[in-house]
Protein backbone atom coordinates (compact mmCIF):
# COMPACT_ATOMS: atom_id res chain seq x y z
CA UNK A 1 0.00 0.00 0.00
CA UNK A 2 1.21 3.48 -0.77
CA UNK A 3 0.16 3.96 2.81
CA UNK A 4 1.38 6.41 5.38
CA UNK A 5 1.45 9.37 3.05
CA UNK A 6 -1.72 9.11 1.02
CA UNK A 7 -4.81 11.02 2.07
CA UNK A 8 -7.07 8.77 0.02
CA UNK A 9 -10.30 7.81 1.73
CA UNK A 10 -12.29 4.81 0.50
CA UNK A 11 -15.65 5.80 -0.87
CA UNK A 12 -18.18 5.18 -3.60
CA UNK A 13 -19.27 8.72 -4.41
CA UNK A 14 -19.50 10.21 -7.86
CA UNK A 15 -16.04 11.69 -7.42
CA UNK A 16 -14.48 8.45 -6.25
CA UNK A 17 -15.79 6.71 -9.34
CA UNK A 18 -14.75 9.43 -11.80
CA UNK A 19 -11.75 8.97 -14.07
CA UNK A 20 -8.57 10.31 -12.36
CA UNK A 21 -7.96 12.66 -15.29
CA UNK A 22 -11.42 14.21 -14.90
CA UNK A 23 -10.65 15.00 -11.27
CA UNK A 24 -7.20 16.29 -12.17
CA UNK A 25 -8.61 18.66 -14.79
CA UNK A 26 -11.31 19.75 -12.34
CA UNK A 27 -8.74 20.62 -9.68
CA UNK A 28 -6.39 22.45 -12.02
CA UNK A 29 -9.05 24.51 -13.73
CA UNK A 30 -10.84 25.33 -10.45
CA UNK A 31 -7.68 26.77 -8.97
CA UNK A 32 -6.74 28.56 -12.19
CA UNK A 33 -10.22 30.13 -12.31
CA UNK A 34 -9.94 31.17 -8.65
CA UNK A 35 -6.81 33.16 -9.49
CA UNK A 36 -8.25 34.60 -12.71
CA UNK A 37 -11.62 35.65 -11.24
CA UNK A 38 -11.56 39.38 -10.51
CA UNK A 39 -13.67 39.94 -7.39
CA UNK A 40 -14.51 38.51 -4.01
CA UNK A 41 -17.96 37.24 -5.04
CA UNK A 42 -16.73 35.28 -8.06
CA UNK A 43 -14.05 33.60 -5.98
CA UNK A 44 -16.58 32.92 -3.24
CA UNK A 45 -18.77 31.25 -5.89
CA UNK A 46 -15.91 28.95 -6.95
CA UNK A 47 -15.18 28.13 -3.32
CA UNK A 48 -18.84 27.24 -2.72
CA UNK A 49 -18.97 24.98 -5.78
CA UNK A 50 -15.84 23.19 -4.57
CA UNK A 51 -17.40 22.85 -1.13
CA UNK A 52 -20.51 21.24 -2.63
CA UNK A 53 -18.28 18.72 -4.44
CA UNK A 54 -16.49 18.02 -1.16
CA UNK A 55 -19.84 17.30 0.51
CA UNK A 56 -20.87 15.07 -2.42
CA UNK A 57 -17.61 13.15 -2.00
CA UNK A 58 -18.36 12.78 1.72
CA UNK A 59 -14.99 14.06 2.93
CA UNK A 60 -16.10 17.34 4.50
CA UNK A 61 -15.13 16.53 8.06
CA UNK A 62 -11.61 15.39 7.15
CA UNK A 63 -11.17 18.38 4.88
CA UNK A 64 -12.04 20.83 7.63
CA UNK A 65 -9.52 19.23 9.98
CA UNK A 66 -6.59 19.40 7.52
CA UNK A 67 -7.47 22.62 5.73
CA UNK A 68 -8.02 24.73 8.84
CA UNK A 69 -4.58 23.89 10.25
CA UNK A 70 -3.06 25.11 6.97
CA UNK A 71 -5.24 28.10 6.23
CA UNK A 72 -5.64 29.70 9.63
CA UNK A 73 -2.05 30.90 10.16
CA UNK A 74 -1.75 32.18 6.58
CA UNK A 75 -5.05 34.04 6.75
CA UNK A 76 -4.11 35.68 10.06
CA UNK A 77 -0.72 36.77 8.70
CA UNK A 78 -2.30 38.15 5.51
CA UNK A 79 -5.02 40.04 7.36
CA UNK A 80 -2.52 41.46 9.84
CA UNK A 81 0.19 42.57 7.40
CA UNK A 82 -1.96 43.84 4.50
CA UNK A 83 -4.37 45.74 6.76
CA UNK A 84 -1.50 47.74 8.21
CA UNK A 85 0.84 47.94 5.27
CA UNK A 86 -0.55 47.93 1.75
CA UNK A 87 0.29 50.69 -0.74
CA UNK A 88 -3.43 51.06 -1.57
CA UNK A 89 -4.40 51.80 2.05
CA UNK A 90 -6.16 55.08 2.73
CA UNK A 91 -9.58 54.45 4.35
CA UNK A 92 -9.14 53.95 8.09
CA UNK A 93 -11.13 51.04 9.49
CA UNK A 94 -9.98 51.37 13.11
CA UNK A 95 -7.01 52.65 15.06
CA UNK A 96 -5.48 51.53 18.34
CA UNK A 97 -3.13 54.30 19.41
CA UNK A 98 -0.47 54.67 16.70
CA UNK A 99 -1.51 51.45 14.92
CA UNK A 100 -3.98 52.12 12.11
CA UNK A 101 -5.87 49.41 10.24
CA UNK A 102 -7.20 50.08 6.74
CA UNK A 103 -10.20 48.83 4.73
CA UNK A 104 -8.38 48.39 1.38
CA UNK A 105 -5.74 46.13 2.90
CA UNK A 106 -8.46 44.08 4.58
CA UNK A 107 -10.31 43.42 1.32
CA UNK A 108 -7.09 42.67 -0.59
CA UNK A 109 -6.08 40.20 2.13
CA UNK A 110 -9.55 38.62 2.09
CA UNK A 111 -9.36 38.01 -1.68
CA UNK A 112 -5.87 36.52 -1.40
CA UNK A 113 -6.92 34.27 1.50
CA UNK A 114 -10.01 33.11 -0.36
CA UNK A 115 -7.95 32.25 -3.45
CA UNK A 116 -5.56 30.22 -1.32
CA UNK A 117 -8.59 28.51 0.24
CA UNK A 118 -9.78 27.50 -3.25
CA UNK A 119 -6.30 26.16 -4.03
CA UNK A 120 -6.25 24.10 -0.84
CA UNK A 121 -9.82 22.78 -1.13
CA UNK A 122 -9.46 21.88 -4.82
CA UNK A 123 -6.21 20.00 -4.20
CA UNK A 124 -7.52 18.12 -1.17
CA UNK A 125 -10.70 17.23 -3.06
CA UNK A 126 -8.45 15.49 -5.58
CA UNK A 127 -6.19 13.73 -3.09
CA UNK A 128 -9.06 12.60 -0.84
CA UNK A 129 -10.89 10.88 -3.68
CA UNK A 130 -8.06 9.52 -5.85
CA UNK A 131 -5.80 6.58 -5.06
CA UNK A 132 -2.16 7.63 -5.74
CA UNK A 133 -1.59 4.43 -7.73
CA UNK A 134 -4.50 5.38 -9.99
CA UNK A 135 -2.97 8.76 -10.78
CA UNK A 136 0.27 7.24 -12.05
CA UNK A 137 -1.61 4.47 -13.86
CA UNK A 138 -3.89 6.98 -15.61
CA UNK A 139 -0.95 9.21 -16.53
CA UNK A 140 1.00 6.28 -17.93
CA UNK A 141 -2.00 5.27 -20.06
CA UNK A 142 -1.88 8.80 -21.46
CA UNK A 143 1.77 8.56 -22.38
CA UNK A 144 3.80 9.27 -19.22
CA UNK A 145 6.98 7.22 -19.48
CA UNK A 146 6.93 4.07 -17.31
CA UNK A 147 10.22 5.27 -15.79
CA UNK A 148 8.52 8.38 -14.45
CA UNK A 149 5.63 6.21 -13.30
CA UNK A 150 8.11 4.19 -11.30
CA UNK A 151 9.67 7.35 -9.83
CA UNK A 152 6.29 8.67 -8.62
CA UNK A 153 5.08 5.38 -7.25
CA UNK A 154 8.28 4.41 -5.51
CA UNK A 155 8.74 7.89 -4.01
CA UNK A 156 5.35 7.46 -2.34
CA UNK A 157 6.57 4.20 -0.83
CA UNK A 158 10.11 5.27 0.07
CA UNK A 159 9.13 8.48 1.87
CA UNK A 160 7.26 6.77 4.76
CA UNK A 161 10.05 4.18 5.08
CA UNK A 162 12.67 6.92 5.24
CA UNK A 163 10.68 8.84 7.82
CA UNK A 164 10.42 5.65 9.93
CA UNK A 165 14.15 5.18 9.66
CA UNK A 166 14.67 8.82 10.70
CA UNK A 167 12.74 8.05 13.88
CA UNK A 168 14.86 4.98 14.59
CA UNK A 169 18.11 6.87 13.98
CA UNK A 170 16.92 9.59 16.31
CA UNK A 171 16.30 7.05 19.09
CA UNK A 172 19.70 5.44 18.47
CA UNK A 173 21.59 8.73 18.54
CA UNK A 174 19.72 9.87 21.65
CA UNK A 175 20.67 6.70 23.45
CA UNK A 176 24.28 7.56 22.62
CA UNK A 177 23.82 10.92 24.31
CA UNK A 178 22.88 13.21 21.43
CA UNK A 179 20.87 16.15 22.71
CA UNK A 180 17.84 16.92 20.58
CA UNK A 181 16.27 19.43 22.93
CA UNK A 182 17.37 22.68 24.50
CA UNK A 183 18.70 25.88 23.02
CA UNK A 184 18.67 26.56 19.28
CA UNK A 185 22.44 26.04 18.73
CA UNK A 186 22.22 22.75 20.62
CA UNK A 187 19.30 21.55 18.48
CA UNK A 188 20.99 22.76 15.29
CA UNK A 189 24.10 20.75 16.15
CA UNK A 190 21.96 17.61 16.32
CA UNK A 191 20.88 18.00 12.68
CA UNK A 192 23.91 16.45 11.00
CA UNK A 193 24.25 13.39 13.26
CA UNK A 194 20.61 12.61 12.48
CA UNK A 195 20.72 13.39 8.78
CA UNK A 196 24.03 11.87 7.65
CA UNK A 197 23.48 8.22 8.65
CA UNK A 198 19.98 8.32 7.23
CA UNK A 199 21.04 9.69 3.87
CA UNK A 200 24.15 7.58 3.48
CA UNK A 201 22.31 4.34 4.18
CA UNK A 202 19.40 5.16 1.89
CA UNK A 203 21.72 6.24 -0.93
CA UNK A 204 23.85 3.13 -0.70
CA UNK A 205 20.69 0.99 -0.92
CA UNK A 206 19.93 2.44 -4.37
CA UNK A 207 22.54 0.36 -6.14
CA UNK A 208 20.97 -2.87 -4.94
CA UNK A 209 17.55 -1.61 -5.90
CA UNK A 210 18.74 -0.69 -9.38
CA UNK A 211 20.18 -4.16 -9.90
CA UNK A 212 17.06 -5.83 -8.56
CA UNK A 213 14.95 -3.81 -10.99
CA UNK A 214 17.16 -4.49 -13.96
CA UNK A 215 17.05 -8.25 -13.54
CA UNK A 216 13.26 -7.90 -13.58
CA UNK A 217 13.34 -6.20 -16.95
CA UNK A 218 13.16 -2.54 -15.90
CA UNK A 219 14.12 -0.28 -18.77
CA UNK A 220 13.76 -2.89 -21.48
CA UNK A 221 12.49 -1.32 -24.71
CA UNK A 222 9.23 -3.27 -24.79
CA UNK A 223 5.58 -2.27 -24.93
CA UNK A 224 3.92 -2.29 -21.49
CA UNK A 225 0.40 -3.53 -20.88
CA UNK A 226 -2.13 -1.71 -18.74
CA UNK A 227 -2.89 -3.12 -15.33
CA UNK A 228 -6.51 -2.12 -15.71
CA UNK A 229 -8.75 0.20 -17.67
CA UNK A 230 -10.50 3.11 -16.03
CA UNK A 231 -14.15 3.60 -16.92
CA UNK A 232 -14.41 6.74 -18.98
CA UNK A 233 -17.74 8.08 -20.20
CA UNK A 234 -18.73 10.61 -22.84
CA UNK A 235 -20.08 12.87 -20.09
CA UNK A 236 -16.71 12.89 -18.40
CA UNK A 237 -14.89 13.59 -21.63
CA UNK A 238 -17.17 16.56 -22.30
CA UNK A 239 -16.74 17.79 -18.70
CA UNK A 240 -12.97 17.63 -19.04
CA UNK A 241 -12.97 19.67 -22.21
CA UNK A 242 -15.45 22.19 -20.85
CA UNK A 243 -13.38 22.69 -17.69
CA UNK A 244 -10.14 22.95 -19.62
CA UNK A 245 -11.60 25.48 -22.07
CA UNK A 246 -13.12 27.57 -19.26
CA UNK A 247 -9.61 28.71 -18.27
CA UNK A 248 -8.57 30.40 -21.55
CA UNK A 249 -12.15 31.72 -21.85
CA UNK A 250 -11.86 33.34 -18.43
CA UNK A 251 -8.49 34.88 -19.36
CA UNK A 252 -10.02 36.37 -22.52
CA UNK A 253 -12.97 37.66 -20.48
CA UNK A 254 -10.58 39.32 -18.04
CA UNK A 255 -8.71 40.96 -20.90
CA UNK A 256 -12.00 42.22 -22.33
CA UNK A 257 -12.79 43.93 -19.05
CA UNK A 258 -14.47 41.40 -16.74
CA UNK A 259 -14.56 43.15 -13.36
Amino acid sequence: MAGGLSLYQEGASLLHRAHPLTKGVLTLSALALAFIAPSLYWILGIALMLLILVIVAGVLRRLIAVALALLLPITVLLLAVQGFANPANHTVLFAIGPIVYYTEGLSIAAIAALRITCLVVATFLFSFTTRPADITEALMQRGLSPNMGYVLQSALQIIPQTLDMAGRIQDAQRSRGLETEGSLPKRARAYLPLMLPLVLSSLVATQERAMALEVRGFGLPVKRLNRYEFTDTAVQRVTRWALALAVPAAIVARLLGWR
Partner: protein
Amino acid sequence: MGILNAFKVRMNTLAIVLIPVCIAIDWAGHAIASTLKLPLFLDSIGTVLGGLLAGPWVGGIAGLITNFISSGTVDPIAAPYSVISLAIGIAAGIAGYYGWHKTWPGRVALYILIVLVASIGSTPLNIGLYQGQSGLPFGDALYAGMVKGGWPTWLAAYIDEASGDIPDKLITVVVAILIFFGLPNRYRALFSVWRRPADEKAPAPAPSV
Protein backbone atom coordinates in the same frame (compact mmCIF):
# COMPACT_ATOMS: atom_id res chain seq x y z
CA MET B 1 29.50 21.74 -26.30
CA GLY B 2 29.82 23.22 -22.85
CA ILE B 3 26.70 23.64 -20.81
CA LEU B 4 24.33 21.81 -23.17
CA ASN B 5 26.24 18.61 -22.65
CA ALA B 6 25.17 18.63 -19.00
CA PHE B 7 21.57 18.51 -20.17
CA LYS B 8 21.93 15.52 -22.43
CA VAL B 9 19.58 12.92 -21.01
CA ARG B 10 21.63 9.96 -19.91
CA MET B 11 19.28 8.22 -17.55
CA ASN B 12 20.34 4.73 -16.62
CA THR B 13 18.42 2.65 -14.11
CA LEU B 14 20.65 3.85 -11.27
CA ALA B 15 19.89 7.49 -12.02
CA ILE B 16 16.16 6.78 -12.15
CA VAL B 17 16.29 4.87 -8.86
CA LEU B 18 18.19 7.77 -7.31
CA ILE B 19 15.31 10.20 -7.93
CA PRO B 20 12.84 8.74 -5.39
CA VAL B 21 15.66 8.49 -2.86
CA CYS B 22 16.44 12.20 -3.34
CA ILE B 23 12.74 12.94 -2.89
CA ALA B 24 12.75 10.97 0.36
CA ILE B 25 15.86 12.88 1.51
CA ASP B 26 14.02 16.15 0.85
CA TRP B 27 11.21 14.93 3.07
CA ALA B 28 13.49 13.55 5.78
CA GLY B 29 15.51 16.79 5.88
CA HIS B 30 12.33 18.74 6.48
CA ALA B 31 10.99 16.22 9.00
CA ILE B 32 14.20 16.24 11.06
CA ALA B 33 14.26 20.04 10.99
CA SER B 34 10.69 20.06 12.34
CA THR B 35 11.41 17.51 15.10
CA LEU B 36 14.38 19.60 16.21
CA LYS B 37 12.13 22.68 15.97
CA LEU B 38 14.64 24.48 13.75
CA PRO B 39 13.16 27.63 12.22
CA LEU B 40 14.09 26.52 8.67
CA PHE B 41 12.50 24.36 5.96
CA LEU B 42 15.60 22.43 4.78
CA ASP B 43 13.42 20.66 2.25
CA SER B 44 15.72 20.71 -0.76
CA ILE B 45 18.81 18.86 0.44
CA GLY B 46 17.93 15.84 -1.71
CA THR B 47 17.29 18.06 -4.73
CA VAL B 48 20.71 19.71 -4.47
CA LEU B 49 22.44 16.41 -3.76
CA GLY B 50 20.70 14.76 -6.71
CA GLY B 51 21.85 17.58 -8.98
CA LEU B 52 25.45 17.34 -7.76
CA LEU B 53 25.57 13.55 -8.01
CA ALA B 54 23.66 12.80 -11.18
CA GLY B 55 23.02 15.97 -13.11
CA PRO B 56 20.36 18.60 -13.76
CA TRP B 57 17.64 16.16 -14.81
CA VAL B 58 17.82 14.02 -11.69
CA GLY B 59 17.98 17.07 -9.42
CA GLY B 60 15.25 18.91 -11.27
CA ILE B 61 12.81 16.02 -11.42
CA ALA B 62 13.46 15.21 -7.76
CA GLY B 63 12.63 18.81 -6.81
CA LEU B 64 9.54 18.92 -8.98
CA ILE B 65 8.08 15.67 -7.64
CA THR B 66 8.95 16.53 -4.03
CA ASN B 67 6.67 19.53 -4.34
CA PHE B 68 3.97 17.62 -6.20
CA ILE B 69 3.83 14.97 -3.51
CA SER B 70 3.78 17.44 -0.66
CA SER B 71 1.06 19.45 -2.37
CA GLY B 72 -1.03 16.30 -2.72
CA THR B 73 -0.55 15.23 0.88
CA VAL B 74 0.38 17.85 3.44
CA ASP B 75 0.56 21.27 1.84
CA PRO B 76 -1.34 22.14 -1.36
CA ILE B 77 0.26 25.58 -1.41
CA ALA B 78 3.57 23.89 -2.32
CA ALA B 79 2.26 23.17 -5.83
CA PRO B 80 3.06 26.52 -7.50
CA TYR B 81 6.54 26.46 -5.98
CA SER B 82 7.39 23.20 -7.73
CA VAL B 83 8.83 25.32 -10.56
CA ILE B 84 11.35 26.77 -8.10
CA SER B 85 12.37 23.32 -6.89
CA LEU B 86 12.85 22.25 -10.49
CA ALA B 87 15.09 25.28 -11.07
CA ILE B 88 17.09 24.60 -7.88
CA GLY B 89 17.76 21.01 -8.98
CA ILE B 90 18.81 22.16 -12.45
CA ALA B 91 21.08 24.87 -10.99
CA ALA B 92 22.73 22.35 -8.69
CA GLY B 93 23.13 20.01 -11.66
CA ILE B 94 24.93 22.64 -13.73
CA ALA B 95 27.15 23.54 -10.79
CA GLY B 96 27.92 19.87 -10.29
CA TYR B 97 28.74 19.47 -13.97
CA TYR B 98 31.41 22.14 -13.68
CA GLY B 99 32.62 20.67 -10.38
CA TRP B 100 31.86 23.79 -8.33
CA HIS B 101 31.35 21.73 -5.19
CA LYS B 102 35.00 20.67 -5.23
CA THR B 103 36.58 24.08 -4.60
CA TRP B 104 35.89 26.72 -1.95
CA PRO B 105 35.07 29.60 -4.33
CA GLY B 106 32.85 27.17 -6.25
CA ARG B 107 30.97 26.16 -3.09
CA VAL B 108 30.30 29.80 -2.26
CA ALA B 109 29.17 30.34 -5.85
CA LEU B 110 26.85 27.31 -5.62
CA TYR B 111 25.31 28.73 -2.45
CA ILE B 112 24.84 32.18 -3.98
CA LEU B 113 23.40 30.68 -7.18
CA ILE B 114 20.84 28.64 -5.27
CA VAL B 115 19.83 31.54 -3.02
CA LEU B 116 19.35 33.69 -6.13
CA VAL B 117 17.33 31.05 -7.98
CA ALA B 118 15.11 30.41 -4.96
CA SER B 119 14.53 34.03 -3.97
CA ILE B 120 14.15 35.53 -7.45
CA GLY B 121 11.87 32.69 -8.49
CA SER B 122 9.67 32.75 -5.38
CA THR B 123 9.11 36.51 -5.25
CA PRO B 124 6.65 36.72 -8.18
CA LEU B 125 4.80 33.69 -6.78
CA ASN B 126 4.61 35.34 -3.37
CA ILE B 127 3.25 38.49 -4.97
CA GLY B 128 0.61 36.49 -6.85
CA LEU B 129 -0.37 34.29 -3.92
CA TYR B 130 0.22 36.34 -0.79
CA GLN B 131 0.41 39.92 -2.02
CA GLY B 132 4.18 39.71 -1.59
CA GLN B 133 4.39 38.14 1.85
CA SER B 134 6.36 34.95 2.33
CA GLY B 135 4.23 33.39 5.06
CA LEU B 136 7.05 33.42 7.60
CA PRO B 137 6.38 35.72 10.57
CA PHE B 138 9.93 37.15 10.67
CA GLY B 139 10.08 37.99 6.97
CA ASP B 140 6.54 39.32 6.97
CA ALA B 141 7.31 41.67 9.86
CA LEU B 142 10.22 43.01 7.76
CA TYR B 143 7.85 43.32 4.81
CA ALA B 144 5.26 45.28 6.80
CA GLY B 145 7.96 47.65 8.05
CA MET B 146 9.41 48.26 4.59
CA VAL B 147 6.06 48.82 2.85
CA LYS B 148 5.06 51.16 5.69
CA GLY B 149 8.34 53.00 5.11
CA GLY B 150 7.38 53.60 1.48
CA TRP B 151 9.60 50.98 -0.16
CA PRO B 152 8.27 49.48 -3.41
CA THR B 153 6.30 46.27 -2.78
CA TRP B 154 8.42 44.11 -5.10
CA LEU B 155 11.61 45.05 -3.26
CA ALA B 156 10.00 44.43 0.14
CA ALA B 157 8.65 41.12 -1.16
CA TYR B 158 12.12 40.13 -2.40
CA ILE B 159 13.81 40.98 0.91
CA ASP B 160 11.02 39.18 2.79
CA GLU B 161 11.64 36.02 0.73
CA ALA B 162 15.44 36.29 0.77
CA SER B 163 15.51 36.67 4.56
CA GLY B 164 14.20 33.10 4.71
CA ASP B 165 16.27 31.70 1.84
CA ILE B 166 19.67 33.02 2.95
CA PRO B 167 19.96 30.88 6.12
CA ASP B 168 17.85 28.01 4.75
CA LYS B 169 19.86 27.44 1.59
CA LEU B 170 23.17 27.87 3.46
CA ILE B 171 22.44 24.83 5.63
CA THR B 172 20.97 22.99 2.62
CA VAL B 173 24.10 23.46 0.51
CA VAL B 174 26.47 22.70 3.40
CA VAL B 175 24.65 19.47 4.27
CA ALA B 176 24.39 18.40 0.62
CA ILE B 177 28.13 18.93 0.08
CA LEU B 178 28.99 17.12 3.33
CA ILE B 179 26.88 14.16 2.24
CA PHE B 180 28.43 14.22 -1.24
CA PHE B 181 31.92 13.93 0.19
CA GLY B 182 30.77 11.44 2.82
CA LEU B 183 29.80 8.96 0.11
CA PRO B 184 32.23 6.20 -0.82
CA ASN B 185 34.30 7.12 -3.92
CA ARG B 186 33.22 4.00 -5.69
CA TYR B 187 29.63 5.01 -5.20
CA ARG B 188 30.06 8.55 -6.49
CA ALA B 189 31.74 7.18 -9.62
CA LEU B 190 28.65 5.08 -10.37
CA PHE B 191 26.67 8.20 -11.14
CA SER B 192 29.25 10.00 -13.20
CA VAL B 193 28.01 8.64 -16.56
CA TRP B 194 26.27 11.96 -17.10
CA ARG B 195 29.62 13.74 -17.08
CA ARG B 196 30.75 11.85 -20.16
CA PRO B 197 32.18 14.22 -22.80
CA ALA B 198 29.84 15.03 -25.69
CA ASP B 199 31.80 13.17 -28.35
CA GLU B 200 32.13 9.93 -26.40
CA LYS B 201 29.60 7.26 -27.31
CA ALA B 202 27.47 5.57 -24.67
CA PRO B 203 28.33 1.91 -24.20
CA ALA B 204 26.07 -0.39 -26.16
CA PRO B 205 23.10 -1.72 -24.15
CA ALA B 206 22.99 -5.39 -23.30
CA PRO B 207 21.38 -7.39 -26.12
CA SER B 208 17.71 -7.98 -25.37
CA VAL B 209 16.49 -11.52 -25.36
